[in-house]
């Protein structure tokens, strides 16, 4: 296991492109990461050499494709530290995983039952719970976030009670970068008798996740931020928790037998995978996980944080700069505002210098309201970013400061 930044960059064909005459500095990894050659090749190789629909096929390529698809499930299980690949449901991404859980648990709720989330959730971990509030009379509660971006754990604990049936918390915030102590939170949630869900979208990319250690009932992730393709993600669940979920989509693959007067369902995980799944995307995700797990992930973390702190050092000197999210435990997500300058202006000017960042609400409107801001500019680092790119970010924001004053 090594971590050589030049070797890593060489594996990403897209990093050689130019934007507006500058080498691309891609700092929008929290939105979606670029894909290494290994992922691109795995998907095209599958299409070129062996492709068919999965499951129940009786010819050679159907068996081969099924083996590759189910092999990818095993890789997700290994990434997450899941005891068995049968505990991994393929979904389109985190959003679909969380919607599946919310839909699937709705039948267990009574009016007045409480769902506890946090102010730093992504809309994908808010809106599905709003559905349960609107449709089933559940009470949705938001645990507060402290000024530095840390979850207010005392307040969180005080909001848990026997009425709390569902707790759903982001492992790493896409806007603040904060890493939440989900193992501890899971203990509290389980002690209160609640079902514990963790949104692992950002966390799987940056930290070592072990769902067995965390002890949560469900853990949701997506592939495209993990250097894999779009359209594929996964939901891990404990066997008993998955058994409690009502299926979300009905159709082929998810059934055992269908009659005119009744239907019996397939075993988990296929019960939750109606229709032809995103086969190539799952295989691509498997390749991304192989590639990712072969990295020295501790070194990758240190490298990303070095880029983060290097950029932060430079940005702090810029007039009007304000970091949003300064939790002691955080990943390489740098959200900021620049007094008097709209984040959209900053992003557009940075693009002119070949620096790609995000500007907006980052699907975290309640968090924006918490900080009384309408949007932030956000640079988010991945394994292939460099200190030189952090310097270019700083230089471009300095230019933007000149434009926007």
């Amino acid at each position: 296991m090594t971590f050589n930044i030049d070797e890593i960059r060489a594996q990403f064909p897209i990093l050689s492109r130019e934007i507006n005459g500058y080498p691309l500095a891609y700092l929008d990894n929290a939105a979606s990461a670029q894909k290494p050659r290994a992922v691109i090749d795995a998907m095209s190789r599958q299409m070129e050499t062996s492709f068919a629909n999965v499951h129940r096929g009786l010819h050679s390529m159907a068996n081969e494709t099924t083996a590759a698809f189910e092999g990818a499930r095993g890789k997700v299980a290994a990434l997450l530290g899941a005891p068995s690949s049968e505990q991994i449901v393929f979904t389109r991404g985190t959003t679909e995983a969380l919607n599946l859980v919310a839909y699937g648990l709705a039948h267990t709720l009574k009016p007045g039952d409480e769902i506890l989330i946090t102010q730093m959730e992504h809309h994908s971990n808010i809106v599905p719970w709003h559905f349960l509030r609107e449709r089933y009379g559940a009470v949705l509660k938001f645990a507060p976030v402290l000024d530095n971006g840390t979850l207010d754990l005392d307040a969180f604990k005080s909001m848990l009670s026997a009425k709390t049936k569902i707790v759903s918390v982001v492992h790493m915030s896409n806007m603040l970068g904060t890493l939440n102590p989900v193992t501890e939170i899971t203990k509290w949630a389980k002690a209160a008798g609640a079902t514990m869900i963790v949104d692992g979208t950002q966390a799987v990319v940056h930290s070592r996740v072990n769902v067995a250690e965390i002890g949560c009932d469900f853990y949701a992730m997506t592939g495209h931020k993990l250097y894999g393709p779009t359209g594929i993600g996964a939901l891990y669940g404990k066997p008993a928790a998955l058994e409690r979920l009502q299926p979300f989509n009905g159709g082929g693959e998810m059934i055992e037998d269908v009659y005119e007067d009744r239907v019996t369902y397939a075993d988990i995980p296929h019960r939750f995978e109606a229709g032809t799944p995103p086969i190539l995307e799952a295989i691509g995700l498997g390749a991304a996980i192989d590639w990712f797990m072969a990295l020295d992930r501790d070194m990758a973390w240190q490298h990303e944080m070095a880029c983060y702190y290097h950029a932060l050092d430079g940005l702090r000197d810029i007039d009007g700069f304000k970091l949003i999210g300064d939790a002691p435990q955080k990943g390489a997500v740098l959200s900021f505002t620049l007094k008097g300058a709209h984040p959209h202006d900053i992003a557009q000017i940075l693009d002119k210098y070949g620096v790609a960042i995000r500007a907006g609400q980052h699907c975290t409107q309640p968090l924006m309201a918490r900080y009384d801001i309408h949007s932030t500019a956000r640079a988010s680092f991945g394994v292939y970013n460099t200190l030189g790119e952090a310097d270019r970010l700083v230089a471009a924001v300095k230019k933007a400061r000149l434009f926007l004053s």
Partner: protein
Amino acid sequence: MTDHPDHIQDMVDDFTFLGDWEERYMHVIEMGKALAPLMEGERNEATRVKGCASQVWLVSEAADGDDPIMTYRGDSDAFIVKGLIAVALKIYSGRRASEITATKARPIFDSLDLSGHLSAQRANGLGAMVERIQRDAAMRASK
């Protein structure tokens, strides 16, 4: 090179003296800063132009008559978008409704080397704003 009416050609001429994109952006931003801000009450749901990532408001006023002169005022919380609004107002505000509906934005923004901002995929919403300006004019022109 497209020929433009005088009030547009003046602006196009201003831009031709500008060198690189930095100078053009600076100029656009300056044009935005020179716009009179809307009054607080004018920034409301009715005047908000949807489809813009930043907040954009547009107020239209029509004089009397069959083919009235339309006056537009606009605002945004972002500098570049506000500048682009100023460019759009230079093109469309104070013109007759029939002229506004007949004036295509793309060739003008092409001449200014700003047409990249017009496409629907661009989140800044210039396209949505021009659409709104022309729709409001079309409603008055047909009355």
